[in-house]
């Protein structure tokens, strides 16, 4: 199954609430889940998030920044599981559930991007170098909406599901 098909399957499993991005412009909101970054027209430097119209590469201060999708897959650089509830504006589940944050190396972009581990994945299975894929997941919800964020899922566990 392709990444897009899997994402559709996961999207359709959730409730009939409206899914909205927890933050606009940082990832695709339908179809294949991808992080949305910026790329310099001259240098090819990548940026995540894009959020600024200008380049932060000092060798090309006037280069145009185009919106690009970052690689769907990367490799685990490191990870940590948080056992204490963070302060606001974190939106905790009630009761609080520990969660894992990954640092993921993207080969093509030559950068490391943070993201949480899909909550149904076991962090005990992680080692550095494990291949992970980006997907959309529910960060928190209210009566009407589910607020979506990017998250990483080890590619191997996808096969096992």
């Amino acid at each position: 199954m392709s990444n897009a098909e899997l994402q559709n399957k996961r999207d359709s499993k959730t409730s009939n609430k409206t899914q909205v991005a927890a933050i606009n412009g940082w990832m695709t909101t339908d179809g294949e889940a991808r992080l949305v970054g910026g790329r310099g027209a001259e240098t090819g430097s990548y940026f995540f998030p894009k959020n600024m119209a200008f380049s932060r590469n000092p060798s090309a201060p006037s280069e145009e920044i185009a919106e690009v999708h970052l690689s769907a897959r990367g490799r685990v650089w490191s990870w940590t599981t948080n056992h204490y509830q963070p302060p606001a504006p974190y939106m905790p589940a009630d009761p609080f559930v520990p969660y894992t944050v990954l640092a993921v190396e993207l080969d093509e972009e030559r950068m490391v991007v943070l993201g949480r581990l899909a909550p149904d994945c076991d962090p005990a299975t992680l080692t550095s170098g494990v291949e992970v894929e980006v997907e959309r997941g529910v960060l928190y919800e209210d009566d009407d909406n589910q607020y979506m964020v990017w998250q990483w899922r080890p590619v191997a566990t996808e096969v096992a599901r």
Partner: protein
Amino acid sequence: MSVGEVAVLGVGMHPWGKWGRNFVEYGVVAARAALADAEVDWRDIQFVAGGETVRNGYPGYVAGATFAQALGWQGAPVVSAYAACASGATALNAARAQILAGLCDVALVVGADTTPKGFLAPNAGERGDDPDWLRFRLLGATNPTYFGLYARRRMEQYGATPDHFAKVKVKNARHGLNNPYARFRKEVTIEDVNASPMVSDPLRLLEICATSDGAAALVICSLDYARSRGVSNPVRIAAVSTVTPTYPNTVIEMPNFATDSAFGVPEPERSFRDSIAYAAYEQAGIGPEDVNLAEVYDLSTSLELDWYENIGLCAPGEAEQLLDAGVTTLGGRVPVNVSGGLASFGEAVPAQAIQQVCEITWQLRGQAEGRQVEGARVGLTVNQGLFGHGSCVIAKR
């Protein structure tokens, strides 16, 4: 690069703790202690540099003026510096530059903080364009989250174990036992550390520094001014580095969601953390082999091990061996965090880099009772904060 030196004429601190009083009180206690130590009348101070606190409203933003007013207006120009954990060193550097430029002879540097309990949190409100706010909302990426990522990376890359990390805490707790300014003065064992609650795996509660109230102050001056006061052999500040990263910064750092991209550009010769100490060594004209003691920013136990490598005490991946061999314990070749470090103090952000300088000053004067590094001639302090800040100070005698 040839850089002039300034003298440390006086140092003073208010004990670290969770006192719950106004930060200005602590700052005044520390400032008066430093002035008394220097035997300089407050009214003779020609420049005041304050390390800002961002958790105490407007008086914290204008810390330099706040302390000057509290000590009694006497007309000296002031500056207030915020550079996250490097704020104190940045204030010191502003005062040092005034002296080296000949704009003044003697200056007071003060940092003080009153901190809330628990995790340091971002500013309140809906702040959708503030990465410091967004990291909490979108990821729950507290400061210890980043420390946990670095610690796990050390385990994966170099084979560090949780016991190595715990040993750093055991060492620093022992060092801090005899420091009257330290907040936590209690011996702990590896078992105590490993029995404390997990915070950001693999780091436990006893391995992550607390937030504290406290204050530290320095009186610094030109070498001529020191001589005029009859101080012929003062502790001298030979370097203050406050460099920022060089693009592309390829290590993930607070409060960022991603590193810079190294696509199509050469990576810098040194990592940001390496470059902080390197710039100081260049200014001082010395190398890591000349350092007799170091105060490094142990926001977590594993970060202390990273610093051994960043300041050149050993090659990457060798910090655990250095620790195991006792090299960085009091009595070893290069004791690290003989003050007790953040493990014994907890962090009072704008005061902490100044506290580090107070400690190496006492050490170089031979006044660090109960924790003295014998024959210390060169001391180094180093730290790093969020948003690309860091500092390194080298003092000699």
